């Protein structure tokens, strides 16, 4: 007892919370699970194949970079961040996209979007959105070919093998008829034909806005309610704070309300804006990415409002029907600026950092 024992000097604190990066990442994945499973049911085997291909590619890309840098591979993969990146990317792709879209996207996300910057925590831009935008710009045709929902148990839905054939062989001509436009795409094309929204949405072929998500779109955008439920789970677990989702959705809703009341024939209403496209997925799962968002609550409100505003602007006046990915990337670029100017007040100092006046 009186003898010495080897002591490694350790700094305080000698206690740690039970949290870990892997726990955070896996909870986010768990929150995505209901919407994902629902998407699988809606879009069938091709969507399932695309999902695992994208995730596997993201993980392979990460592992490849780690090997190249001679860093430990398994512990880093164990943090679950590559899994989450691949998952988020898969949810933002057209469900019946060919296999190489998933492969290129997954590799691009982790290799170019993340590891090139130095790995987890170092990337300036959200890797999943970097990959999505790269795919959208490079391969506009497969990235905008959407499939109408075809529940997996219905007779027209492709089985496991047909699903593989669709994912690896391309859309068979017989099923091409099932392709359909997203709501934003439809609204945009009708507007550009000179048909205003009041007329175009009263037409029978107009895509219905559905809370249950039975409409064309990516896995992550159709099941709005399940995505929102997952987001609320993350809020309840305090994995994310309310600031970014609230600011982003409130800004989209506010802009839509204003413009729709000005001219309902030209501008879509609030519910359509909130429930279509990537608004909810973006608000709860993408814009809230820790690494690429500001680290103060005030900064997060600014960031969320910026994403919401840019999303609305791009959707309404931009060249693409959907704008969440671009909006997130643009605001990611502003994050260091926001963090530079919005800092918490330090105890005993005013906002500028000068010591408080002494008043006894």
């Amino acid at each position, binding site marked *: *007892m*009186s003898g010495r024992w080897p*002591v490694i000097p350790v700094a305080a604190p000698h206690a*740690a919370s039970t949290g*870990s990066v892997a726990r955070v990442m896996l909870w986010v994945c768990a929150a995505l699970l209901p919407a994902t499973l629902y998407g699988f049911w809606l879009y069938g085997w091709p969507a399932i194949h695309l999902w695992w291909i994208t995730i596997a590619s993201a993980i392979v890309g990460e592992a490849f970079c780690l090997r190249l840098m001679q860093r430990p591979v398994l512990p880093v993969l164990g943090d679950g961040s590559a899994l989450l990146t691949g998952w988020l990317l898969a949810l933002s792709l057209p469900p019946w996209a060919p296999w190489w879209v998933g492969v290129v996207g997954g590799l691009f996300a982790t290799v170019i979007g993340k590891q090139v910057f130095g790995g987890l925590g170092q990337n300036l831009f959200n890797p999943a959105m970097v990959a999505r935008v790269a795919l959208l710009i490079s391969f506009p045709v497969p990235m905008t070919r959407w499939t109408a929902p075809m529940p997996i148990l219905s007779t027209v839905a492709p089985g496991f093998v047909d699903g593989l054939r669709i994912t690896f062989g391309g859309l068979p001509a017989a099923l091409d008829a099932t392709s359909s436009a997203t709501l934003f795409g439809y609204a945009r094309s009708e507007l550009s034909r000179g048909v205003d929204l009041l007329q175009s949405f009263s037409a029978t072929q107009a895509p219905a806005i559905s809370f249950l998500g039975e409409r064309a779109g990516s896995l992550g955008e159709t099941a709005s309610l399940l995505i929102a439920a997952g987001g609320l789970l993350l809020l309840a677990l305090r994995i994310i704070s309310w600031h970014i989702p609230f600011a982003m959705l409130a800004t989209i809703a506010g802009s839509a309300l204003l413009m729709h009341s000005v001219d309902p024939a030209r501008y879509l209403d609030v519910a359509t804006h909130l429930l279509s496209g990537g608004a909810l997925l973006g608000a709860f799962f993408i814009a809230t990415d820790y690494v690429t968002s500001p680290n103060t609550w005030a900064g997060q409100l600014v960031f969320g409002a910026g994403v919401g505003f840019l999303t609305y602007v791009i959707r309404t006046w931009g060249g693409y029907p959907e704008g969440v990915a671009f909006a997130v990337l643009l605001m990611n670029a502003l994050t260091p600026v926001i963090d530079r100017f919005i800092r918490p007040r330090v105890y005993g100092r005013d906002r500028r950092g000068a010591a408080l006046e002494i008043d006894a």
Partner: protein
Amino acid sequence: MGIFEKIFRRQPHWGVHPDDNKRPAADAPLRSLPLPELLHVPMQQHVGGPARPVVLVGQAVRKGQLIAEAQGNISAPVHAPTSGRISAIGEITAPHPSGLAQLAITIAADGADAWCERAPVSDPFALAPEEIARLTAAAGVVGLGGATFPAAVKFNLGRRLKVSTLIVNGGECEPYLSSDDRIMRDRASEVVDGLRIVMYAIGAREALIGIEDNKPEAIAAMTIAAAPFGNVQVRPVPARYPMGSDKQLIQTLTGKEVPADARAAEVGVLVHNVSTCAAVHRALRCGEPLVERIVTVNGGALTRPGNFMAPLGALVVDLLRFAGVNGRPARLVLGGPMMGVVLPHARVPIVKGASGILAFDAGEAQIPAAGPCIRCGSCTRACPMGLLPLEMASRIGAEDLDAAAGFGLSDCIGCGCCAYVCPSHIPLVQYFSYAKGELSARERSRLRNDATRRLADERQARLAREAREKVAAAARRKAERDAAKAAATTRPAPVAVAVAPGEVAT
């Protein structure tokens, strides 16, 4: 308290809530450590100059006798914790992770534990406040919460700055520790009497006793003890680490914020720990200097954890044996788990600031390996000072210490909240301690360089002045010589003028 104060003060937006692990150790009755044969009393048990020994080896001392006197304005004397004979004045491992040695007086106890002549004061309130400060200083009382700042120096400061409120810190927010809890439960009346003496000494009008609400027994005992005194109030505060930190407790209790680089006394508040107040009571009412303290001995490696009354100078190993060690502790910590220091081994003496000794088993000592920062911002929300630990750490990682200082590194109180909550388990406090040390070393070397440069400049100036004076003197002598020569030519000189060697060659 108004409704707004209730809402806003109950839930601080900062801090962390670690498992407190205080019970069952806190509930075990206070036990006295059996007197060890040897006590090693260090000379530096306080902030300030080390005490200077005034005894000789072989000399017999009685309990409470002065064995080392204070040196300098900020210092504290040291007294014999028991009766016996001085067996050595030498070195002992300091309670510090470095394991460096420091000067200590070793006393071989005679077992009688006989007190020296004590001079109790029956009515301290009849004395002048200055006299109370003097007696407190002479009794070697220092802040027992861990800061170990000499108490009397703070009394004088408080009186000079006309402090109106005394805050008595019974927060004890560190997990595992319960020595303050124990003193409030068992000696509430001593604590209240001591704090009233402190109030009188600093001229405070009211005292607020802040106790975390995870100590209901202490709150109950202190409320009863404080009941007769209208200007002494017990104020339960939320159990949230670091509630026991001066700045956070002052803010919670009074709403005042201590300005950066200012002392609490400048906003009219002074903070003293409950154990310090009890020590003041004993120093005045019983005439007993500070020679013992309650030490919490806790941790998974112990079979009978609890609180022990231990003489200063007892070794950690004595306490661990008394508490029953279950296997080999994986880590020994002096103080609490959030801010305590690792002890190099167990042959380290108990000092005035030793509120707890933790013997962790392997599970408790386990801290997961550090990973990359994912900028989750948990540290920012936990920081009680409103700093951005992740930004400071990334600057320090890049050796850009000035940028880290720009993020308010000097305001960091080292409480460890950030490192505790970090999901990547980055040792943030280690980063900040390193940077603070490095910056203060740079500052010292800058001051030294400035001083050296000033001395060098002065030397240059002096040499230049001397050279100028030499030239001037030479010119003057030459002028005198020329004048003499001129005088000689008018009257032919009888002797030849001496010629310099250089001139011979021409």
